[in-house]
């Protein structure tokens, strides 16, 4: 479905020296600083997958999405969608994709939402019957018809993102790119959006590539994640396998009756605050029961609980935080 080969993007950022002389120099002979935003990314995404793109700010996620959706021309490498190079055959290939940026609308500020949809209907030459059917279907999931007569300018962020999502799906694309779609949304809007993504993926077999800083999105939606940092691929694979490999531990939380907490020889005490201590241990090495047994020989335990390693743990490792 999607083949990304040696994809790289350099940006030329204008470098300005401070002060008047700097400004003049910039006018006469501007100096550029090369930013390697994305370096040699290669991966394959199959039909019907939902892939989460994660990485810290400035990692190159948006840049990658923009190259995959035909907005930016790669400095090196290429993106094939259904075997066709999106840079070379942009007009044909983009028929099969939809794109939503959570931070910026693709809709026309001056039009009512419905008018923007009509415009898209003409641009993609969607047949009336298909258009009506798709709109009904999307309305059932997102409840769009109540805001269809609203000018985009007057919409709340959540309404606008809904509008953008529907707009991106009107032509029934095979691939949907979502760049931080849940940013700034409240809990129920996030919930609706996740439901929407799951639905279109299940019913229409739409392939979804999304970036997010919300680990809930990842947990809910993605079986597969790709982690990038400094434009370089750090991880690509099944979410739970990556968690198992990078963070093969659990954490035992123990509460005592006073502030003294004993160490355990095969655990790392990662927190000791008041009467509570957290012991991190390797899943394959040890069980929580053994630790509890060992500890209770030394000191009376009031309460215990277990924390599983999650995406936040792998992110700490992968981001180098």
């Amino acid at each position, binding site marked *: 479905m999607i083949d990304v080969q040696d994809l790289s993007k350099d940006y030329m950022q204008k470098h300005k020296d401070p002060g008047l002389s700097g400004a003049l120099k910039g006018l006469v002979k501007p100096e550029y600083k090369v930013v390697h935003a994305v370096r040699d990314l290669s991966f394959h995404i199959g039909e019907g997958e939902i892939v989460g793109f994660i990485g810290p700010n400035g990692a190159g996620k948006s840049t990658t999405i923009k190259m995959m959706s035909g907005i*930016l021309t790669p400095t090196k490498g290429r993106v094939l969608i259904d075997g066709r190079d999106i840079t070379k055959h942009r007009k044909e290939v*983009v028929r099969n994709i939809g794109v939503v940026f959570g931070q910026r609308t693709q809709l026309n500020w001056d039009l009512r939402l419905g008018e923007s949809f009509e415009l898209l209907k003409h641009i993609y030459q969607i047949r009336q019957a298909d258009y009506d059917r798709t709109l009904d279907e999307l309305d059932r999931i997102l409840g769009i018809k109540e805001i269809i007569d609203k000018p985009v300018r007057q919409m709340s962020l959540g309404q606008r993102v809904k509008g953008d999502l529907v707009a991106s799906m009107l032509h029934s694309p095979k691939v949907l790119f979502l760049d931080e779609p849940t940013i700034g949304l409240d809990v129920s809007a996030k919930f609706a959006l996740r439901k929407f993504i799951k639905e279109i993926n299940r019913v229409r077999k739409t392939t979804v590539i999304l970036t997010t800083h919300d680990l809930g999105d990842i947990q809910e939606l993605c079986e597969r994640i790709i982690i990038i940092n400094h434009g370089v691929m750090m991880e690509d694979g099944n979410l739970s396998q990556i968690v198992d490999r990078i963070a093969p531990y659990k954490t035992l939380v123990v509460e005592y009756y006073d502030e003294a907490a004993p160490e355990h020889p095969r655990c790392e005490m990662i927190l000791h605050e008041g009467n509570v201590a957290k012991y991190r241990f390797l899943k394959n090495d040890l069980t929580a029961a053994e630790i509890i047994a060992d500890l209770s020989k030394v000191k009376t335990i009031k309460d215990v609980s277990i924390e599983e390693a999650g995406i936040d743990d792998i992110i700490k490792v992968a981001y180098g935080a």
Partner: protein
Amino acid sequence: MGFAIIKFVVESFGEINGWNYGQLAFLYGLSVISHALSMIFFVQGWFMGYYVIEGDFDRYLTRPLGVLYQFFFTNINIFGVTDLIPGILVFIYGCVKCEVTVNLLFILQVVVILVGATLIRGGIYILLGSTSFHTRSAVDFGQYTQEIMDKTTMYPLSMYPESMQFILTYLIPVGWISFYPVSALLGIDSAYNAMLVPLITLGVGILVMLVAGAYFSMGLRKYGSAGN
């Protein structure tokens, strides 16, 4: 305003460079009409730099149509019509003064000239606007360009030095917007064939557009969107 000056000059001196009052009105009117048409269809070109800086080409790039096509045709400026009406009035006035026979051929010639002239103007806007892809800055070139184009298309080109005429004919071919076609149509200079010159204007218009389109596409490859 510009035409008031012409009127003043002509009334004081009788003519400009061998062009009488009616011929000047014809030239002026035709130039204003193509200017108005370019304002209707291509004025967005003046603002291309802002689109480049703000990353506003993103939405056009993700849709299955030509970027330039969407850029201009989703931004058609109906207010350009306000320039169209005075242009038409002065042009009709010029036609009457010059006693031209208005027949099908004449109308066809004028239409061909106007299409060519509008394309030349539009192409120049695109060429200038596309420099923003390389400079990464938005220069408001509209005003200057307009002044230069007004000065070179509303008055006979023959009043400028020959080197200027050469430049304005072959390098920045604004001479074809009004001066050469009107010289031919009104028979002011017998060297210009009234059948051929309108077609040359159209040809030059298409050529300028093609070059502009290619330069724009080159720029688009350097387009950097905006880092949100």
